[in-house]
């Protein structure tokens, strides 16, 4: 494993929790919830496994706008979504290990022919971030991460609508909208998936929407149509919130 920071410690801790018999965990001699909380890195001091420092700033600044923090519920940064993205891109997803990547690639294929980009997700981020920063450097004389919230929203909207021509910023193949699609999809995945993948810290999103996580046993609830489910979430590693 290439990760030499808080995350590997986290993986180690979680690994040892998983190895414990359930009885030990539930006896709370060494609670899984405590272990997971202990292990979830603090985002400000997290050392990315995949992203270089300027890229990490970009991802933090983008996630912060894609799911902002407000009184309704936690945002992407509080829930470690950038950690999730970094971990995914450092692993098999980032390398597109499962996807068919042989050429020739027709990157101009119509959208209904699906993913035809010659780049794995890690490469898509690398190129997309570079092109976006080149765009903001030209238009605002700043990197994306240095822009205020409102301007970042405007740039993200332009990416989504494919109104930034990446070809003019050194990226002839990848479209702005395709890059944005990955960024948004992965941000929402990190927000809503099990905390063992690095995001959804404290199961904050699940608490907000009322999803009970990995409880996965509802024989006594199936008969109660329409009654709001009362219990909070548990994670795969036994955290509760």
């Amino acid at each position, binding site marked *: 494993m290439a990760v030499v920071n808080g995350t590997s410690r986290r993986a180690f801790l979680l690994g040892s929790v998983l190895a414990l018999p359930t009885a030990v965990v539930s006896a709370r001699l060494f609670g899984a919830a405590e272990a997971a909380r202990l292990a979830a890195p603090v985002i400000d001091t997290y050392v990315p496994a995949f992203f270089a420092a300027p890229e990490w700033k970009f991802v933090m600044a983008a996630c912060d706008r894609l799911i902002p923090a407000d009184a309704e519920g936690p945002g992407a940064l509080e829930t470690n979504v950038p950690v999730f993205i970094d971990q995914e891109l450092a692993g098999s997803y980032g390398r597109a290990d499962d996807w068919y*990547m042989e050429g020739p690639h027709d990157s101009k294929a119509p959208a209904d022919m699906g993913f035809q980009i010659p780049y794995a997700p890690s490469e898509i981020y690398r190129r997309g971030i570079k092109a976006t920063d080149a765009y903001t450097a030209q238009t605002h004389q700043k990197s994306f991460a240095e822009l205020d919230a409102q301007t970042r*929203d405007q740039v993200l909207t332009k990416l989504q609508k494919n109104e930034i021509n990446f070809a003019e910023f050194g990226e002839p193949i990848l479209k702005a909208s395709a890059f944005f699609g990955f960024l948004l999809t992965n941000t929402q995945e990190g927000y809503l998936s099990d905390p063992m*993948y690095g995001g959804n810290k404290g199961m904050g999103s699940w608490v907000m929407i009322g999803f009970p996580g990995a409880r996965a046993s509802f024989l006594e609830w199936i008969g109660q149509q329409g009654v709001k489910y009362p219990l909070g979430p548990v994670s795969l590693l036994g955290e509760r919130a």
Partner: protein
Amino acid sequence: MAIVNDAVDVVVVGLGWTGSIMSIELAKAGLKVRALESGPERTNAEEIYPKPADQLGYSVRQKVFAKARQSALTVRHNQSQTALPTRRWGAFKPGNGVGGAGVHWTAVLIRPTPTDLKLKTWADQTYKPGQLQDDMTIQDFPVTWDEMEPHFDFFEKVCGASGQAGNIKGVIQEGGDPFEGPRSNPFPLPPLKDTLNNTIFAKAAKKLGYHPFPNPSAAASGAWTNPYGVQIAPCNYCGFCSDYYCLNYSKASPQTTILDAAKRLSNFDYRVNAHVTRVDLHDDKKTAKGVTYIDEKGQEVFQPANIVILASFQFNNVRLMMLSGIGKPYDPNTGEGQIGRNYAFLSNGNATLFFKDKNFNPFVTAGPTGQMINDFSPGTFDATPYDFIGGAKLHSSQAGGAPIGAALPHGTPSWGAGWKKGMKDWYGHSMKVSITTTCMSYRGNYLDLDPTYKDPYGQPLLRMTFDWAQNELKLQQFLRQRVLEIVKEIGPDSYTESFLKPDAHWNTTSYISTHNVGGAVMGETPNDSAINKYMQSWDVHNVFVPGGNAFPQNFQANPTLMLGALTYFSVKQITDQYIKNPGPLVQI
């Protein structure tokens, strides 16, 4: 070639549903059976509670599915286009590994109707000559309802099927599907419990004069011991079913219903990570001598066998026939050849209904949970005024409720504070009313080998040429109206809809269902089919090809009960007749 295995009586290619049925039944008949499965081992012990309760790993990253890197196809809409690879799964997502797609299916286990089996005959009686599209190539299944019924019944017992019968020996049963073909027995187990969406849908459907009934399910509603002596546990409505390995030993899969019993037979064994690259034929091309596979070390191995069963899923079966020179490839320009002909798929559509004050608790559910009506399938309503043939299962199902990709009302921003608020306000407050449709077969929808793209073993990918025909687009428009009438009756706060527009082309990117059919269809003669009613190749008589490939077109019911029944029908003929007297089982 370096390695030659010990000879076996039967080699089974693929250990999903059809391969598992063939394996246990042929081994029980005393034959030495070896299954070769291209994917990894998958066991219940590894997939224990709560591990599969993981939406990202199982449903989004598809960890127990086939990898597109190994099993992509190429797709295009018509012959004039260059096909492109399915670089990651879109409209369908095949299985891989022990259990095949049977480990992560939704487990709706439903019979076709007697009309579905004889669709061409029914169409000729029902429509005026020339009324239907002239490039339509539908045909009857070469089996009758009476031939199939005992095998439907048996496979339902294997799976611990849960549901409400609608027609037992001709007597219509309250609460079941009145359009059902006569069944010899009720379901082994009562239906699953209903969720709120079911209750709401059933009430509205009844009010409109339809006949709702619970989705027939292969997630067991109670404890069950099947004919192989395997015990299945009552479903706990965990909410992680469609796309997931069952964490509760409740969803019928090859593992939970067949393989534990098969593994006790000393004359059955199987190899995993064994990817079959071709069937090897004798020089006269009339019989096969075995198959060649690549083992986990990358070595080529020849497996001699007297009988070859291709059970590798619909499009893999078709491709292996083409790669092995079994039968003549189909040519869409001349209509000659049978291998690749009559590929068909299915379409779906839905309305999503939002209710501020209702809690659907979508995470409390089984995969097959739902209520449906069969009031719109061929023979149950009159489609002649609309100039289309076909129909749909019209249903409200709740196959899972984990939050990634949750439906949000029209106008909700796709990101930012508005998206988050949308998730907070609307997660768990919606239900669907959906259609799963028939799909006819056409001259121009077919399969062949791609000229450009290759798999990791250097073999050409299968090329799928497919698009919606006018018939299916008219069907969608008709059904959309029926769905919207039901939506109106239900009266949600708001709704969104997703149906095919009249000028739609097949969108290869959004999931429909892995109910691919045809390409090596069954029929009465070698002139209309690749395989006979026992799914035996007309050309190479010791090769049997069970799978969705056998369907001449697609009916509205999910395919697996028919597939399982056809496989039992075939294996009975192999054990009763073929072993004693190897040769074509249907004389022409």
